[in-house]
């Protein structure tokens, strides 16, 4: 076996080790490169900046623990921004397995920002139905959620004063790891009830949401850990996302290097095979 063939069939544990080191070392020794903010992330930030204090902001945390590394920092950054702007925050989730995590993030950030449950924010929790839940919220929020996650009657909460339906919400952001998510909120919510909608999502599904962004069906999109890092830069509160960007940078370059190396070895193998084939044909012709 030639060197190139051995390299193409290298033990994958070596690749795992390379990726592991590329992720770990930058976390231990951060570099802190500058992060450029994209227009789609800035759009979400600027819209929240434009909302007057007391506006209703609904954050639907439609993800489960599997997507926590990418979407949890987005949720933290958005909640910090919303609480700093003194918006009335309504938290909820369309994913039952994400309920506990959504409760943790909103409670943690609210505590950090000195906000009171029922007065400054409410966590509605999860209710079955997805599309039908959104429609019910659009018709009558109190029918969809008669009580919040802590069994407080929603109709008596000061934070939900003057909010009857989704039409009364000023801005909805869905942080989505898949379906149900941003498209669900658009199809069953924004199209009928005409509220402004923004999105946050994992890096994997972000490219699929660009048609909605380009046609202004969503006014902004925070994509993956990079999007969360950009948002942290915008609100000037660097956290988990910015800390993870160095590791992501090195890992991306490691994968680029691996792909280039693989193609280089593959080209060598092909050239060698072509030459061997020509030599064999030449020998047969001489005989």
């Amino acid at each position: 076996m030639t060197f190139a063939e051995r390299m193409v069939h290298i033990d994958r544990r070596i690749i795992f080790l390379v990726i592991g080191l590329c992720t770990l070392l930058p976390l231990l020794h951060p570099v802190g490169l500058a992060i450029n903010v994209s227009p789609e992330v800035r759009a979400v930030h600027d819209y929240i900046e434009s909302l007057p204090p007391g506006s209703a902001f609904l954050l639907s945390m439609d993800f489960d623990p599997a997507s926590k590394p990418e979407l949890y920092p987005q949720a933290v950054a958005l909640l910090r921004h919303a609480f700093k702007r003194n918006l009335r925050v309504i938290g909820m989730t369309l994913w039952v397995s994400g309920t506990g995590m959504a409760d943790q993030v909103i409670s943690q950030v609210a505590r950090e920002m000195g906000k009171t449950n029922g007065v400054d924010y409410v966590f509605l929790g999860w209710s079955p139905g997805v599309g039908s839940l959104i429609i019910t919220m659009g018709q009558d929020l109190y029918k969809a959620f008669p009580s919040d996650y802590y069994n407080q009657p929603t109709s008596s909460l000061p934070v939900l004063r003057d909010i009857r339906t989704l039409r009364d919400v000023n801005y909805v952001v869905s942080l989505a790891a898949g379906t149900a998510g941003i498209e669900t909120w658009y199809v069953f919510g924004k199209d009928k009830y005409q509220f402004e909608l923004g999105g946050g999502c994992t890096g994997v599904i972000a490219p699929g949401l660009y048609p909605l962004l380009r046609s202004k069906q969503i006014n902004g999109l925070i994509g993956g850990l990079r999007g969360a890092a950009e948002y942290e830069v915008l609100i000037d509160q660097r956290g988990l996302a910015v800390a993870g960007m160095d590791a992501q940078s090195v890992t991306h370059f490691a994968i680029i290097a691996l792909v280039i190396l693989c193609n280089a070895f593959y080209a060598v193998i092909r050239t060698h095979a072509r030459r061997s084939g020509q030599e064999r044909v030449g020998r047969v012709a001489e005989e």
Partner: protein
Amino acid sequence: MTFLRRQLPLLITFVMGVVFALQYYVPHPASEQLLTTVNKWLQIIGGFALILGVTSLFHQHAVKIRRREPGWGYSFVLYAGMLLTVAIGLWVNGKETSNGTMTAFGWVYTYMMVPLQGTMFAILAFFIASAAYRSFRARSREAAVLLVAAVIVMMGRVPLGEHLLPISGDITEWILNVLNAAVRRAILIGISLGAVALSLKIIFGVERAYLGGGKE
């Protein structure tokens, strides 16, 4: 019996399909009230579907355990985990916290489910790197174009890439906002037209796979 299994579901599908397709365009309060009521029914049925799903999962793994099929030990672990979590959840009324302190259910969620799910997806990064190394080869012109675009986007989406090659950020934005958006839009339109066609077939009873009998 055939009426209950065939004709009645088809009739309900037809009536509800036509009524709610038209309801969208009728802004009358009675129409909105009908929508609200039926959506509440849907939410209730959704709750029952959850029970159905769990029951089906139980049955599937019970058969595996009874027949001692390969991997039946894992089915046993699934049973134990599910029953334990349900029991604990019912004991604390499904709450992760109570008066600021974490409940047993919250402990199971925070220290078992969250790390396990996170780990499962975190290890994907290693497998993706290995798969990229083995299969991301420029075997043809199209594959070479895909490879170059992938490398540019991978560079443009991280600060190090933008630092080393500033233009990679702009090119990445262009690829995502122009090329990618155009192609995804075409795919979305195709899927949507297909969904409309399938919905009409279901409403008019042409497509009956959901009944379990297939087309007639």
